[in-house]
């Protein structure tokens, strides 16, 4: 303990904070895109898990971590398209569908990873992803996340497709009468958002632990749902909120050894801190946060 200097401690905390923030920011941005189109996908935790598994699977299969990330995004997009099929095409309730996707993903990924482990073993290998290349010491995932946040922000607020997206989430009927294909926009938003959520899962598995574990998302998907509200449906706001929670998480890890015996008492409190803060923030500290007016409401032309 004493051989670590304070600057080192700060640096490692920051580093860990960024690492923790990356999947949160990606997932929350994905959810934000869907919500801006009026889709509230509470199945995001499950989509993230599917992305994590899809990521490791494609990385293991191809032997490339980059291919793993692409696989994670594709898996997430597919899972989210399933959500869109149910809720947009068949106008099923979004909350119920999201819940179903979560349960499905929890179960399926658990079963699938056992099979894959055994399958890899029978080929004389282990079911893991190779490490991501780190060109010039730059964290590729953090860079990618920054890029995603910037592009999403500009796309939503400064482009015509962004205006279309927001119109569909605010008033689908008005969008329809303006000549916009509401269902198509919602499908696209679901797929793009799902790809980011899947990528967030991939960042966890392929990018950090290199392997898939059951429930490895550990509630990050649910936290991302809250981050969207925190960030007031703006990509930059959401990214800042993700950084805040990432740092909080890292701080908790850093503080653990310094606490000595008190750790048994304080550890649960530290782990719970982000969630407690979320609760407090959602209870109104963020001020007037306005969700897209048509969030979670199906559009049913006559």
């Amino acid at each position, binding site marked *: 303990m004493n051989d670590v200097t304070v600057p080192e401690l700060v640096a490692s905390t920051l580093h860990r904070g960024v690492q923790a923030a990356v999947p949160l920011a990606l997932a929350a941005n994905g959810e934000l895109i869907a919500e801006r189109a009026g889709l509230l996908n509470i199945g995001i935790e499950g989509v993230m898990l599917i992305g994590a598994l899809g990521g490791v699977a494609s990385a293991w299969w191809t032997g490339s971590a980059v291919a793993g990330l692409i696989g994670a995004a594709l898996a997430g997009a597919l899972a989210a398209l399933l959500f869109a099929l149910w809720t947009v095409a068949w106008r099923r309730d979004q909350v119920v569908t999201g819940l179903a996707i979560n349960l499905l993903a929890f179960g399926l990924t658990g079963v699938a990873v056992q099979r894959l482990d055994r399958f890899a073993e029978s080929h004389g290998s282990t079911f893991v992803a190779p490490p991501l290349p780190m060109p010039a010491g730059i964290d590729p995932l953090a860079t990618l996340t920054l890029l995603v946040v910037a592009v999403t922000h500009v796309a939503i607020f400064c482009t*015509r497709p962004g205006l279309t997206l*927001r119109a569909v989430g*605010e008033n689908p009927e008005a*969008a329809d009468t*303006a*000549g*916009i294909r509401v269902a198509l926009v919602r499908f696209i938003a679901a797929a793009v958002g799902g790809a980011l959520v899947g990528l967030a899962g991939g960042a966890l598995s392929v990018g950090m632990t290199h392997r898939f574990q059951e429930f490895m998302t550990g509630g990050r998907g649910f936290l991302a749902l809250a981050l969207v509200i925190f960030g007031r449906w703006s990509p930059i706001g959401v990214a800042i909120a993700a950084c805040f929670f990432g740092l909080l998480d890292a701080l908790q890890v850093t503080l653990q050894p310094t606490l000595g015996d008190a750790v048994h008492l304080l550890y649960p409190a530290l782990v719970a801190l982000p969630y407690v803060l979320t609760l407090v923030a959602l209870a109104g500290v963020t001020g007037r946060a*306005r969700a897209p007016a048509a969030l979670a409401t199906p559009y049913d032309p006559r």
Partner: protein
Amino acid sequence: MLEARRIAKRFGPVVALADVSVEFHDREVHAVLGENGAGKSTLMNILYGLIRPDAGQVVLDGRALRLRRPMDAHAAGIAMVHQHFMLVEDFTVAENLMLGHLDVGWWLPRSAVRRRAREAARRFALDVDPDRRVEELSVGQRQRVEILKALLREAHTFILDEPTGVLSPDDAQQLFESLRRLRNRGARILFISHKLNEVMAIADRVTVLRRGRRIITESADRATPESLAQQMVGRPLGEFVRPPAPSSGDAVLELRNVSSARGHVALRDVSLVVRSGEIVGIAGVDGNGQTELARMVLGLDRPEAGDVRLFDPDGGRIEPAPRAVAHIADDRRREALVLNMSLAENAVLKHHTDATFSRRGWLNRRAIASHAAQLVREFDIRPASPFVAAASLSGGNQQRLVIGRELAAGRGLVLAVNPTRGLDVASTDFVHRRLSERAANGCGVLLISADLDEILRLVDRIYVIHSGRLTESRRAGDPARPTHDTAEIARLMAGLPPDCGGRT
């Protein structure tokens, strides 16, 4: 030529259109008339691809159109002003105007959009600020945006579903000018209105629908307001004019020097009194403080200075509150009804905690249903089923439901804000009779209306509201039959000082 051929549409048990065929020519303004619920909006929405017909075809220049969604109508050169605004409240006016215009590229060219919006506003002489968010606009301003949105499209057919309901007379004149210009350039204009004098002024031909069937299509020259009203309703109709009944009863509502800067328009030193037995009118162009005044009377806002006093029939003071007032709200869809709930549930919405309708938290379904059935009968609401969702009623029938509910509660003060907006001739007449009956039974009625004719026909006293200030306009002339000076009222509405010369 645009043709509706043998169109039929049912909503559940309700037949909205039964085998309707109409031809709309090029270079004509074609008015479509009919009572509330006659099927006008349904027909227009079918022509626009928003509703799909059960049977029949839309044929444009001999070619059958496949209208799966409004986009297809745009491709066929059809633009529409919707009866219920199709605006994104969270967007600015400019953003709403450019929504769905594909020719602007990927980037939002903010300055270009704004310029285009300004140009359009100037070209059609409908003044709107492109940077305001729609949420902040009054209904009159929203209507201008909705109209501009349609006129901006490069269309050959323009459908306007009750575009003038909330427009000021000036704006309506400007709109008619624009429509005439468009028609003279060859456009085809389908126009819906309940105001027959407007129809006579602008239409070339007229089609009358009644209960989902086409009754007649004829040249407007051959029609008179009376003949049209008769065809719409199926019987002759006299116009109701209430004889003035000046009252010296007790005050039911009194505002004393009320000022408040809350809301979009500041109220400035507003004083007024409504006595039992009289109808007091507040005339004025929309957006001059009417909303703010109504909120004061309902107790939704408290005055920053001055005093709002509400009295019960015994003269005791009561707290201004929405439940203490029979309130016929301006925007029925947002302020008066819960659209997803049934007609019956809406019929008791404000009074559902009364002992008749619930006891210890349990609703008395039977009492509610019979109350709704009574309202349906008394106010002739169609379809006459208490279980349909309020959303599925036509605009006029929604309004009948609101009026029925509010008047049934027996409050001492009736606050009616544009109560006949969007209502057909028969319903308007009906509402006017009801309000007048209320006054005769000892209620005080405060009628806030942008429709000056309505006010002149009904009220005992008139105040004019402009920029949050009230001015009373007194009757003058022959002491035996004093009349209101409409020229003076028009001046006050425009914010000019009353003419001081030569009157007693």
